């Protein structure tokens, strides 16, 4: 369903008091986000939560490339996150591959699955697109459940703990939370920079045009189906990369990572933060995971708080946390 959502692109707005700030924000968005990431582990209650925010932030940004920027609501992106994690884990535990080869394989397989699922799903539109992606991803979930000799089935995949990453000249001890955080942060920062390049590229303009008005984009000479497929695969690769990082971080791959519950989580985080903005999904992941972590310590009924906050956002702050801030910044 083409979402005529008001994207708060940080493109320079003529004649607004905050225009220079917004322009600066958009031009320097990657270094600014890098600075924020460096501070994160010391602000949040624990490094483990900070790493999760990194990983789910990357998943949300990857997902937002398709949902916020191309306007396609998919409910099956857990498949790519899970596929990235499982491939990395299996490559190490079954084939003894080195961690780098395993991660590259993870991203590749996720991309391949995205190509297949995208090619099938893009034939449909709107809520049917969401349902086809949901159905196809559930098929992958049940296949993983059945193939327990490979994936560990319901118990999840275990036995591929990588405690050290060796690089020429230095090595990272993954058992040390701080070293692990900054190692994963480097990968996430590179991925953010890659997404920023895509959004600023000519291709980035095309996917936004498709989100705005698919028929006119086609009339302007763009092959809409192929462009959607490329966006779908790029988004799948990014979620796959996040999956490989999650495998390295937790040293297990829970079956739940393939379940539509995880797909729903991505949608919630992206919208809580602000779909269609660059920082939005990351802010959404940070907000959601922090709320969940803090509230679940207060009471076992934390879900009622998270649910209510979500309703309030949809009703009164539809642009999400970051989207609303951007909009406030714009209105003089």
């Amino acid at each position, binding site marked *: 369903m083409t979402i005529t959502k008001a994207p708060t692109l940080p493109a320079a707005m003529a004649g607004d008091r905050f225009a220079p700030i917004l322009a600066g924000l958009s031009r320097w968005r990657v270094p600014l986000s890098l600075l924020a990431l460096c501070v994160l582990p010391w602000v949040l209650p624990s490094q483990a939560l900070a790493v999760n925010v990194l990983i789910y932030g990357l998943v949300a940004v990857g997902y937002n490339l398709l949902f916020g920027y191309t306007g396609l609501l998919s409910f099956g992106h857990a498949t790519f996150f899970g596929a990235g994690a499982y491939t990395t884990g299996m490559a190490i535990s079954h084939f003894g591959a080195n961690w780098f080869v395993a991660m590259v394989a993870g991203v590749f397989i996720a991309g391949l699955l995205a190509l297949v699922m995208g090619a099938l799903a893009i034939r449909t539109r709107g809520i049917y697109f969401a349902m086809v992606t949901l159905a196809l991803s559930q098929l992958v979930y049940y296949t993983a459940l059945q193939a327990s000799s490979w994936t560990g089935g319901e*118990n*999840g995949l275990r036995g591929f703990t990588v405690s050290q990453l060796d690089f020429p000249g230095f090595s990272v001890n993954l058992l040390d939370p701080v070293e692990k955080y900054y190692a994963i942060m480097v990968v996430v920062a590179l991925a953010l920079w890659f997404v920023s390049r895509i959004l600023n590229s000519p291709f980035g303009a095309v996917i936004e045009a498709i989100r705005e008005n698919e028929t006119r984009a086609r009339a302007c000479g763009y092959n809409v189906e192929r462009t959607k497929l490329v966006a779908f695969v790029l988004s799948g690769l990014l979620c796959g990369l996040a999956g490989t990082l999650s495998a390295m971080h*937790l*040293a297990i791959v*829970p079956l*739940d990572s393939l379940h539509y519950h995880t797909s729903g989580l991505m949608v919630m985080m992206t919208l809580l933060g602000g779909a269609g903005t660059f920082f939005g999904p990351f802010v959404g992941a940070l907000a959601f995971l922090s709320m969940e972590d803090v509230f*679940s310590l*207060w009471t076992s009924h934390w879900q009622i708080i998270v649910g209510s906050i979500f309703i309030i956002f949809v009703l009164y702050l539809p642009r999400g946390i970051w989207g609303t801030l951007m909009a406030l910044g714009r209105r003089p």
Partner: protein
Amino acid sequence: MTRKTGLSAGRGVTRRTALAGIAGGIGTLAMPWVARAQNDTIRIGFPTPLTGPFAAEANDQVRSAQLAVKQFNDKGGIAGRQIELLVRDDKLNAGEAATRTLELIEKDKVHAVVGALSAAVQLAVNEVTRARKVLYVSISQSDSINEAKDGSRYTFHEALNPHMTTQVVAKHTFKQGAKVAHLVADYAYGHEMLRGFKRAGEEIGVETVAEVLHPFGAAEYSTFIPTILASGADVLCISNFGRDQANSIQQAVDFGVKEQMQIVVPVLLHNQRIAVEPDVFEGVVGGANYWWGLEESVPSAKTFNDAFRAMYDGALPTDYGAYGYTGVASLLMAMEAAGGTDTEAVVDALEALKYDIAKGEQRYRQCDHQSVQSVLVLKSKGAGDMKDEADLFEVVANEPASEEVLRSCAELGYTG
């Protein structure tokens, strides 16, 4: 006894349960477990699914674990250090459990971890703890955690495993030449129980006439039951867990299966029994790790029940609740023997430990750290012969602790 509608017969007016629910709920709302870690206290991490389908079992485990901690603190703690239980909600999700365990180890600097209530979650916690050489006592059913590829020097399994449960239950329900049908949840835990039942069945000499695998977490069993009824079996083994157990037995009873065959389950779950009417579970036989009715025959059960009643104004411990007690208490006894929290010393102490704190003699086997313990076989009572609301089961047998019912160390992959 004229049967009013099923609702209120034998359970007192359901309004009471509703009000109890409200009171219980508000209780948990107001009682945050946030306990900032002091420096010298002994901290034990306790991941458990406070939200999700097993929240009731999780709450039982937390209360029993807190009883064990209180008992030790009242005695002045261990080597003068007070003990603190850090409870975290793992939401019955393996990824969440791994994150919570990382937090407990890295931020809260816990000395050991006890807990987790599903096979997937405990294996996730175990993966995090064994890589960091942190002691972990798992307290829920799983066969995989005993196997060499998952086990470790720092992994202990205080719960029953499907293999030992099915061996004992089969011994008391299978008769030579009987026809046995199986309805099994199609996931690791279900397959482990099926494997156990079939191995015991071969030794006793029964004939397997039907094997129906149902999707994990299914709500509808009507399409599986005709095959079972058509198989003409004498015994139906339903190997699944949690709500699947209550749903599958309820629907089997609806189809009149109980008139034709004896229903047997590997584990008779306390909380699933009270989730349905007594007549649904009436006559069903299954295994259990603990039942408060043991207090008539086992002195340590009596002391445990009394301590529990005292602390929780007359409430009784449940099967999964007891795991919380035996898991934490055995760990604290080992720490006491080791005189501190040094992991290597505590592991050695646990391996040498002999303890009888709730259900009779128990000890940890050397190779896979499985707690060798007695296995109960229970039969669910009908509404008629229940003395009161808590009198759910009768004890059919109490198989004493022995290694015969366990898979051999070699078979589990432990060599030498």
